[in-house]
């Protein structure tokens, strides 16, 4: 399927990096809502709907999609620059599963009908996707998932439960990994299914997280009828489909930007409290400062690989481990620095500095769990990079 681009965009890939960077900066300065800069919690659809539609209206919503499908068609190098600038500006993540996951997956594995139906609706903000992978008994061991899809005429009947489904309550659609062959070995019996969240038999219950926000959900499926036409990539091919994650996402999860921002907040608070005259504090602070500076060096090394258009190997897992664990250590020092305020939720004015000490501390806990826990990442590195026996 091919259609003419709706919006005439300049040829970004023909720009040099500095020109493109300036273009992105100007766009963000002009269009991004100030109140949404550097928010820690996940933005809800009600927060970012306008921003999503602004991006959509300018043709900037899907930087990773090719032009023929209405994307920006950025090459990997320009993609990294866009991500860097978004991070620098503190741009919140929009509900992007349609753009980052479903769209590219449909382009790669989907039928023409699926492409024609789903892709434009993602761009228009009509379809908001959530990811239904984890289950109560399938977390790190995702391949042991048990939500099943049984053929029934032209449909599947889906029964089971998904959990930790981020922003499911904002989603119009959910993409699922379901078991379609109980006899096959684990990964081999899994299929990838597109599901309308409004289908009868689906119940979505938000779960309040440690930070007090309702960002993830439980999703129950009770005899939910899903057309077999919604299967992507063929029966029992779900694991392969789901694993096709793009290089720039895998590097982005280890970006130093978030810890750098936390470091700035800590620096402001510590300065207001006169702690830079305390050699004990300066020593602790500098350890973290260099942990993050060195993370930036490591990140740049991997980002360069992506920019050259090369595939990243499994070694990129180390970036996520170090970024998230350094971020955690930083939020721990933030808590310590806040002294008695280190147990008070919400925004505070401590010695004249506006700071929320608990939110970063809470969200940093999740950083070593989602997207493959630190322990899983270490398993991956041990097996595929160090080639240790299992």
């Amino acid at each position, binding site marked *: 399927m091919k259609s003419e681009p709706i919006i005439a965009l300049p040829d970004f890939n023909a720009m040099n990096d500095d020109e493109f960077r300036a273009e992105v900066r100007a766009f963000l300065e002009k269009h991004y809502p100030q109140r949404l800069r550097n928010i820690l919690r996940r933005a809800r659809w009600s927060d970012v709907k306008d921003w999503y539609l602004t991006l959509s209206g300018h043709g900037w919503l899907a930087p990773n999609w090719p032009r023929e499908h209405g994307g920006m068609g950025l090459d990997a190098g320009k993609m990294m620059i866009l991500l860097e600038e978004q991070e620098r500006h503190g741009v919140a993540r929009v509900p992007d599963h349609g753009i980052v996951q479903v769209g590219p997956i449909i382009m790669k594995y989907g039928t023409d009908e699926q492409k024609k139906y789903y892709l434009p609706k993602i761009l228009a903000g009509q379809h908001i996707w959530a990811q239904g992978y984890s289950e109560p008994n399938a977390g790190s061991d995702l391949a042991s998932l048990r939500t099943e899809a049984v053929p029934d005429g032209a449909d599947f009947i889906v029964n089971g439960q998904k959990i930790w489904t981020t922003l499911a309550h904002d989603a119009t659609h959910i993409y699922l990994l379901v078991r379609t062959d109980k006899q096959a070995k684990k990964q081999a019996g899994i299929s990838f299914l597109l599901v309308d969240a409004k289908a009868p038999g689906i119940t979505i219950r938000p779960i309040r997280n440690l930070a007090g926000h309702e960002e993830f959900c439980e999703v129950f499926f009770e005899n939910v009828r899903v057309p077999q036409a919604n299967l992507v990539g063929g029966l029992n091919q779900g694991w392969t489909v789901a694993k096709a994650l793009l290089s720039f996402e895998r590097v982005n999860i280890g970006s130093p930007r978030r810890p750098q921002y936390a470091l700035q907040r800590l620096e402001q608070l510590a300065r207001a409290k006169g702690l830079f005259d305390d050699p004990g504090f300066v020593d602790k602070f500098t350890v973290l400062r260099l942990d993050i*500076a060195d993370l930036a060096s490591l990140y740049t090394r991997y980002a360069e690989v992506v920019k050259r258009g090369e595939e990243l190997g499994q070694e990129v897992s180390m970036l996520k481990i170090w970024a998230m664990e350094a971020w955690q250590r930083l939020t721990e020092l933030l808590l310590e620095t806040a002294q008695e305020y280190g147990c008070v939720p919400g925004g505070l004015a401590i010695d004249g500095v506006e700071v929320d000490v608990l939110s970063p501390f809470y969200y940093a806990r999740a950083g070593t769990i989602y997207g493959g826990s630190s*322990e899983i990442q270490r398993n991956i590195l041990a097996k595929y990079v160090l080639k240790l026996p299992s």
Partner: protein
Amino acid sequence: MTRGTDLKRVRRLRGTRPGFERAVWQQMAEFGWLGILVPEQYGGLGLGCAEMAVVAGGTAGALTPEPLSAAVVLAGGAIARGDNADLKHELLEGLVAGKLIPALAWQERAGILDPGAVSTRAEPFEAAFKLNGGKNFIAGAAGAGGFVVSAQTPEGLALFWVAADTAGATLDLLPLADGRFMGRLQLSDAVVAQDRMLASPAAAHAALQAALDITLVIAGAELLGVMGRALDMSIDYMKTRVQFGRPIGSFQALAHRAVDLHIQRELSSAVLDDTIALFDSDADAARRSAMASRVKARCSEAGLRITREAIQIHGAIGFTDEYDVALYLKRAMTLSAWLGNAALHRRRYAQLVPSDEI
């Protein structure tokens, strides 16, 4: 245990003076290694930090005892930045040819990295200078043909060339963990001719600072070589050592430990690469100093941690003198302590780069 044969020479030379072999040094001269950083006009190759780091990392990974970084990078670096053209010619040509091994005698007190913190005095005396004072922690002092000595003149800090056999210059050697030596140089009315002033007060401080900073980077490369070998050995051992009927590398506690060490190695290598690129550019001295401290801090910390944990991964055999992993720990210890350990360089970095420049 068989790998021990590779390091036979290293073991044999431990604790002997000068602790290395002049024949090997001569070979290094023939390879051109001694002239990597020396400008072509003095017979060197005029290459950069990148090339020096490759050679130093490789030799350190093989635990080579020859004083490459001390003589070529530190002392040679100070000589090359002096402002006495004739003396530079003489010394650098000797260095490149392998005929003269210089050592830099600049530091006096432990934990002080300021090149200007010098009590040693050089008083004008007839057509010469009379030097008095004491220098400490001199790397590559054993076997050195002479010393580049920093001293205060009435006009400010200067560098002098003091030949090893100068009357009034007394060297004694302090044995190090890795079997090499550090020198202590006592100067009591040691007289050097005026033309032995290598760097006048106009050049001395900057020359010392620059030599120190590039040596920190190369020491980082050496530490990376050492930690890399120690970690590779440990990972190999984890694949072959069987206990409870399984290779010990299959135990998650050990596998995760090895991964954490690998991350430290990769962080070290990433910072080193960034720093080398900076040093081979026209970046200013302040940025060089800051990055040099970042490298020395990370590589010292990672080098010590990896070699320490390599002992633990190997178990009892790691605690023996005959097994090689101990040699790596001890080289990491000397390299980490040299020119400021991790804690000292973190402080130096904090002083060089104010915290609001994040």
